[in-house]
Each structure stands twice: as C-alpha cells, then as structure tokens.
C-alpha cells in the first residue's frame, strides 16, 4: 500500500504539465474552460499537436505510433490535461476503433487505417445504436448482404456523435438472421463518401447538434472492410467494454469541474455572503468532493490492477455508474451556482463569439447547456441501469 507516485511517474507528470504549458494554445484552453464548443478545425489542431509529440494514441503499441503508456500514465495525462483545460482527443478512432483493429483486424487493415487516424486523414464515427437498438444493442437491424466482393448495406444508425465531421464509420451490421441476435452481427468499416450514405443532424436539449442519424441505402462496401470474422462483431464490440475504458470514471473532468465550481461559489454573493458560505450549498459541494476523493482512489485501484494485467470486469461498470453520478452532480451544482445568469442562451458565444450581455460572467452561458448535455453520461455507453445489471450479474451468477 502506497498512495504516492513513483519518481518516474512524478517526472512524467512534470513532462505532461510542461508540454501543456508550452504547447496548448490559450485560444483552445479558454474555449474549453468556458464550456464553449470546438470547431472541427480546432479539434484537428489539438490532435496534430498531440501527434507531433507522439502522445495522440496513449494506448497503442509503439510499432503503430502509439505512446504505449501504462494505465497510471494515462490517468496522469488525463488529470493534467483536464486541469489545463485541454480539449479531449476525439475517441472514436483512437480509443474505440483502434483497439478492435489491433486485436482482431488484419495486418493490412492496421497498416492502412491506424496511420490515417494519427495524421488526421480519417475522422471516424461510431455506428452502433439504431432507433430500435439502444440499450438492447444486440437487436441491430441494419443489414449487410453479401453480393460478390461487396456487402450491400441497408438500414439506419443513430446518436452518431460528431458524425457530421466524419469520413468513415465503423458499424455493427446484421449478416445473419437465423440465429441468436448476438451471433449474427459483424463489424464493418464504411466509407461515408459511398453512394447511399446520408447524414442528418439531431439537435439536442442543449441546442447543439453533436449527434446525427446516418442512413444507408444500398451502400456497397468492399468485403475487405470486414473486421475479423463474419458474425463475430458482437464479441469485438464487447471487447471494448472491458479492455479500454480506464477513463470511464471521468475523474479528470470531475477534478476540473470541482475546481471551477469552488471558484464560482466563492466569487458569487448570495444573501450577504458567498455561496461557498451558504450551509446548504456548501454541504452539497462538500459531499460531492468527498465522493470524488474516494472515486479518485477507486479509479486508481482499478487502473493499477489493470496495469498489473487484470482486466477489469464489473469494476468498469462501477466506475461508470459512480463516476457519472459525480460528474452529473457537479454540472447540476454549477448550474445552480450560476443562478439567473444561467438563463440566457447564447449559441454565438458558445461557438466562440463575444459575450454581448453586460456583466454576465464568462462562465455563465455554458452552465445550463453543459448540465443538459451531460444527462447523456448516464444514458450512453450502456445506460447506468445496464451497468447495474452487469455489476450484479457478475457477482450473483444466476
């Protein structure tokens, strides 16, 4: 038992901090700090900066251009990046597709696709959910019928995050209907420039359209775009759930959100005292801070077990449930701390324009949209109810 970091880990933290201090443009960190929306070009700019340092793909092997960090290093990077208000690296290619390709893809697929993720040629999005397949993901209906050297794909995906920026989509498609739903699914890579692919944005509760519907109408996909074996896609999709989710607790985000919340609460006057001195508000703030202190250690316990080679099972689900509860509570408290200043909806400001309302604090416009947006945390990636089922079933074995 030792809660301190090794000298090597401390040196790594310093290295990360120095990199962020010198390389992260203030233009970007200001936007992230204030909860503003990043453009595609800004996200690509940050990817290029990380790639230049060799840090864009923390979990990939060095042979494919990855940093090959262990789980503790990844955790340190996440903490430092969040505290510096760095943009988050877009995960779809880096941490969702790449591990599947590395584990199950052909060498040709790895050689072709992985470098293009690093150099920004390809922007991937995820084609999992469908209108009839949310938490029940195995009921996907998008069909892929073999026709010579091609699959012909028909169907619809939804909740496709940042699909508006993507040129490729990795999809779970149905290749067999005469079996258990899980057994007839394949993992297919589809060029979004193919004839028959259509993307339609979905405006969400926060006023932004970060998700999309993606339609497939007789889309012809070369058979070499199949990952692994036909009808094994469910196994590949599930592999991700247990192997590559050390950031699932979002501890770095919560650390940064708590720091912001404390600043706002101390600076906000309410009834002749600061909000931090209001006993009711202070109690809620303290309770979430205490939960987060324990969560940091819970997360590190799972992370360091993973670093010793133990694949987390139900622990991932616990981190997801508790981590998202904490993140949602923090966004809720920040919204309340902002008071009536949370009311104005200023999309131009959120996109990078100036604050046009006199005396409106700069942090205010994003608080309500962020709160509303973060409701997604307990819904996506397997809803928290699905996670509770996983946690209990792993232990009850009924």
């Amino acid at each position: 038992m030792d809660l301190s970091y090794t000298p090597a880990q401390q040196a790594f933290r310093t290295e990360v901090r120095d990199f962020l201090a010198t390389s992260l443009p203030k233009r970007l960190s200001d936007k992230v700090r204030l909860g503003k929306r990043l453009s595609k070009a800004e996200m690509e700019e940050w990817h290029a900066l990380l790639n230049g340092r060799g840090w864009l793909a923390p979990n990939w092997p060095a042979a494919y251009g990855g940093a090959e960090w262990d789980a503790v290093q990844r955790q340190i990077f996440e903490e430092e990046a969040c505290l510096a208000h760095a943009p988050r690296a877009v995960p779809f290619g880096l941490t969702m597709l790449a591990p599947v390709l590395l584990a199950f893809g052909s060498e040709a697929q790895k050689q072709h696709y992985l470098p293009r993720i690093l150099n920004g040629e390809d922007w991937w999005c995820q084609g999992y959910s469908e209108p009839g397949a949310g938490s029940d993901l195995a009921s996907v209906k998008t069909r892929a019928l073999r026709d010579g050297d091609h699959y012909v794909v028909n169907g619809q995906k939804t909740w496709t995050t940042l699909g508006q920026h993507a040129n490729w989509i990795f999809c779970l498609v149905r290749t067999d209907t005469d079996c258990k739903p899980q057994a007839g699914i394949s993992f297919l890579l589809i060029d979004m420039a193919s004839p028959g692919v259509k993307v339609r944005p979905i405006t969400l509760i926060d006023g932004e359209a970060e998700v999309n519907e993606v339609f497939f109408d007789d889309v012809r996909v070369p058979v070499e775009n199949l990952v692994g074996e036909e009808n094994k896609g469910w196994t590949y999709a599930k592999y991700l759930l247990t192997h590559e989710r050390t950031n699932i607790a979002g501890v770095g985000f919560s650390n940064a959100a708590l720091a912001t919340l404390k600043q706002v609460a101390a600076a906000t006057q309410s009834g002749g005292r600061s909000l931090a001195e209001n006993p009711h508000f202070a109690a809620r703030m303290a309770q979430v801070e205490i939960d987060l202190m324990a969560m940091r250690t819970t997360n590190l316990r799972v992370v360091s077990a993973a670093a010793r080679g133990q694949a987390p099972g139900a622990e991932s689900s616990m981190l997801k449930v508790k981590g998202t509860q904490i993140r949602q509570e923090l966004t809720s408290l920040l919204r309340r701390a902002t008071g009536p200043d949370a009311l104005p909806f200023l999309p131009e400001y959120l996109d990078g324009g100036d604050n046009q309302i006199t005396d409106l604090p700069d942090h205010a416009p994003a608080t309500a949209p962020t709160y509303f947006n973060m409701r997604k945390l307990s819904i996506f990636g397997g809803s928290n109810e699905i996670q509770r089922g996983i946690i209990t079933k792993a232990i009850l074995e009924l």
Partner: protein
Amino acid sequence: MDFTLTEDRAMLQDMLRRFLSENYDHETRRALLARAEPFDRAIWGQLAELGILGALFTEAQGGFAGAGFDIALVFEELGRAGVIEPLLSSAVLGGGLLALLGNDSQQAMVEEVITGAALLAFAHTEPGARYDLSAVGVTAKDAKAEIVLNGTKTHVLGGAEAQRLVVSARETGTRHDPAGISLFLVPADAPGVTVAQHVTIDGFSAATVTLTDVVLPASARLGAAGAAFDAIETVTARATLAVSAEALGAMESAKAMTISYLKERQQFGRPIGKFQALQHRMADVLTEVEQARSAVVNLAGHLEAPRAVRERNVSATKNLIGRVGALVAEEAVQLHGGIGMTDEYALSHFVRRIVMIDHMFGDVDHHLERFIQLGQEAA
C-alpha cells in the same frame, strides 16, 4: 502508487482472518453476549499472542507495525468477524495516548497493553459533549503537589474492564477551549472513582465514570499540563480509521450474506436475485462498498500527514463511511426481509455495528460540517 498489501501485511491479514474464522463465529459472539461477558478472555490472550495488539504500535513504541494500513487491515478483519474484544479501547485509544504522551515509566506500560495483560480505557466524552473533542468540563485542580479530579465521563468504551483509565480534565480555560486540557492516568480502583457499566446496542461494554475528589500525584499527568489536545486529536484520528475499517469489514460480511441470500431465497418460483428491482439495489451496494474501501485507504495513507491534510481525510472518510454504512445496512436488511431483523441471524449484528459506528467519533453531519470548516481554514 501501489494498492497491494506488502508481504508482511498480507501474512498478518491471512493469519488474523484464519484465526477468527476458526475461533470466532457468530455463535461465539452470541454466546458471549448471552452470558453478559464484555469479551472473551481466552480469545483476547490468543489475539495478543498472535501479535495483533503489537501490530497496532510502532517498533519505537514496542510493537512491530503501527502504520495506518496496519490499523486498517486489523480492524477490517475484526469488523468482518464481528469481534467485541477491547482492541479499540485498550490499544488504539488508551495505549495510543500512553505511547504518544507518556514519560519513560508510563511508556513502559505500553508493553503490558501489547501483551494483553493490562487493559486501558479512554475516559473523555462528557454528557452533552456530542462529538466536540474540546468539550471537557471535568476539572483538575492543583492542591499542593497533588491533583484533584471532579466530574463525569460517559460512553467510556471498555471502562468497566480497564485497570487504568486515561482521563481528560481541564486545568485552565473554558469548556470548549482546546488549550488547558490535560490527561491523567487514573487507577480504576482509586478512591472517588465510580464505574457504572452498561452494554451498547451493538454488543460492546461501556461505562459511565464518576470522579469525586479523586486525588492523584502530579506524576499521573501524561505530557505537559494543559497541552493534551493535539494528542487527543491524533489518537482520535487513529480511532476513526479503526472504526471506519471495522465498518468496512462488517459491510463486507453484510454484503456477502446478502449476495448468498439473493441466490438462495426462492419466491415466485425463482431466486429473488433474478428480480431486477433487487439487482439494481444490490449493484449500488456493491459500488458504494468499493467507495468505502477507497475512503479507508485514503485515511490510512494520510494518517501520518500534516494535521490539515490528515484531518481533512478524517472527516471525508468518516462522512463517507457513515453514508455508505447506512445504505449497506439498510439495504441488506431490506433485501433479506424479516429474517434480516432477527437477533439469531448474524446479519442483524453486523447491521447494528455498522450503523452505530456512525455514532462514534463524529457522524455524517458532524464530519460534513467539519470538512467544510477545514476547507475554509485552508483557503
């Protein structure tokens, strides 16, 4: 960063767990309580022989471990087995204060505590003091070369069995003043000392101690006059870790019993663990127990830190243990149904201990408020 036990600690944990599972089952505990015995003298001797008391003290104090993680692992096992032996009262509190403040001859007594031969208790809390460590109204008056104590101490854990009491008393200042408090080593049979024993709802022996013109030599004082508060706070931090780890162990037992029950208990033609309403409640219990374990790790790892950091972790951990403890205890009873409320079934014993630990060394609300105050002091 390492969350595995060292080889020595793993051996200690393994040995203690094995000893308790072979020698301290639920029936042992129930039989002790039925005979109105405060604890089992034979078990006490064996625990001392195994070195469990020595594990709570550093080498310099005559033990062989004594760090936060040692206290945590010992008390987690005690909690897991539902042990009522007086390790907290005699070793962590009484012995801990002697080791911290005692002069050479007083320190020598620590050895007897470690062998189990001597039993100590800490008489500190007073009527109406709740969790305020500085609320000391028992008076200590200098009379020539002697000291005279007067007043009442309540909730003295292990007080009736102890041969010596460590008594806090005020030499100067007003009732809530941290300065002016001293500690005195008082023989339990000294003239003017009355010890009235009672049992707690979770099975421990406690006492009310009345001090009426108790005359002590000045050599009975531990440390400098009026300067005991820091030691009281330090030892209370260690005791808070001990009961937090004990609660964690009891939660692990309650959790294991509930998991078994969800698998075995049949209703509507299937195991009740098949029902999603129950599965989801159990999932939250499992998740929160991991948070409780992290909270114990946090306090154990910061027990030797500077006061501000240590106390912040004391309050964070005790608050979280109180909240999670209530959840685990209440859900374990609910998921069991009526059987969970019977005295015969072990669960109710773990549940009582988990819940009542919130009433020791500060509860959820006390420590939430204190965590906020400590944060404001630091800012």
